[in-house]
């Protein structure tokens, strides 16, 4: 998946074109791996582990989580079953956990690249949301699960996991918005975006197309930007410091 494509191809008219370059899609060709940013590199394990993770995603994209066996994953990764178990003694569920966290690192890297080029908070939010949606829209594993294994799909974003997902989104995305907003607002709006994206990706809305940059911009202008403006004039602040401390991240709140 090394091609470029523009959001403008999706039938937009007046919106500026955004290049989504090398948005990495899971189950990608192992040999042409995109060089990701430092965020990703830190969490990428050995080459064998990423091949196993890719193998898992490829199988899930083909026949789902339920029917995928460690045998299948090994074959897909071109490794023996023993090698797979040496890297993942926990078997399929351990592979799944690593595969999904690598996948998240990939799209965080893609979103990071896009947001760094944004010139306003509006553009940053629009390009951030659009990039995430495009990543998941072209994601065979996720699409298979959503269409055929809804309970497995929901498990990925189930309420017991969502706190972690939301806080992690806040921590990883907030520094990118620091050019436009103060740290507390950056964190809050990042969590807010993650909340919205999870909801609309899991259950697309009938009223607007999250894949259309024009619709996303309208959405951001209608619901998000006025909220940020209201935040500025608000008296009290959300007590997010405690959670940030729990995550051990000192960079967001200085």
């Amino acid at each position, binding site marked *: 998946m090394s091609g470029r494509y523009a959001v403008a191809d999706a039938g937009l008219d007046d919106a500026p074109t955004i290049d989504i370059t090398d948005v990495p899609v899971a189950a990608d060709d192992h040999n042409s791996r995109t060089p990701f940013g430092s965020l990703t590199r830190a969490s990428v394990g050995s080459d064998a582990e990423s091949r196993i993770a890719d193998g898992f995603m490829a199988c899930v994209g083909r026949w789902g989580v339920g029917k995928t066996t460690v045998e299948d994953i090994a074959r897909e990764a071109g490794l023996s079953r023993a090698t797979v178990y040496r890297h993942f003694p926990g078997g399929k569920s351990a592979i799944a956990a690593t595969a999904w966290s690598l996948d998240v690192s990939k799209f965080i890297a893609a979103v990071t690249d896009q947001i760094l080029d944004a010139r306003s908070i509006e553009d940053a939010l629009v390009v951030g949301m659009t990039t995430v949606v495009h990543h998941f829209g072209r994601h065979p594993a996720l699409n298979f699960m959503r269409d055929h294994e809804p309970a497995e799909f929901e498990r990925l974003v189930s309420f017991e996991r969502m706190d972690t997902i939301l*806080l992690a989104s806040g921590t990883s995305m907030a520094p990118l918005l620091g050019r436009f907003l103060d740290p507390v607002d950056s964190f809050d709006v990042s*969590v807010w975006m993650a909340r919205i994206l999870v909801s609309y990706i899991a259950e697309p809305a009938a009223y607007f197309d999250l894949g259309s940059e024009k619709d996303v911009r309208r*959405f951001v202008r209608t*619901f998000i930007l006025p909220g940020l403006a*209201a935040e500025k004039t608000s008296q009290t602040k959300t007590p997010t410091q405690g959670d940030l401390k729990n995550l051990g991240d000192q960079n967001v709140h200085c």
Partner: protein
Amino acid sequence: MAERYNPDPPMMTEVLRAMVDGNALETRERIMAAVIACAGSGGLRGLSMADVASAASVSRTTIYRYFPDGRNQLLTETATWEIARFWARVADAVAGFETLEDRLVAGLVIGRRMMSRSRILTNLNGSDVGDLLEVSQPSDALMRGLVASYIRSGLEDEIETGRARADLDLDLTADYLARMAISWIANSPGLDLEDDPAVRRIVRTQFLAGIMR
């Protein structure tokens, strides 16, 4: 996904009332209440028809008369019934508040409180999560539609009184608010939902800032 949305849903409370009280048979309800009780103490995985029969004081044959497709049907319909009861209680609790803002604030606080007191959710362990999602997932879209239609009527009132913007896309806005409410009730890291001013601040900024005048 459009086909899953009912474009003209009846008022949430009416639908829920019918599902919860209306024509529901007493025995049927007793069986479903027994499922909730059994799931609350022993989780879903080990829950057997025999346990449910004994807790509901009915025979297994009776259970199969009401739920002919067996355990899976029983669990899925019970989940829908229980989630509908949850939202009916939230709707009842916020009915006394006049503005949409007050109803949203109260709904988040009460919904969150009910979630934290649920024995099923409190006792949930890892392997049970998948089972619970399996039975509750089918009602997700229905419930969101009901919450959205409830919020939509509140929005219409706010537009009429001039408090909300008149140029709103009502369907999009009601759907957005329903998603936000459901998401916040399920997950609110960093926010004590018992803290009314903090909840109000969230409602004013993330829910309503672009909606109210």
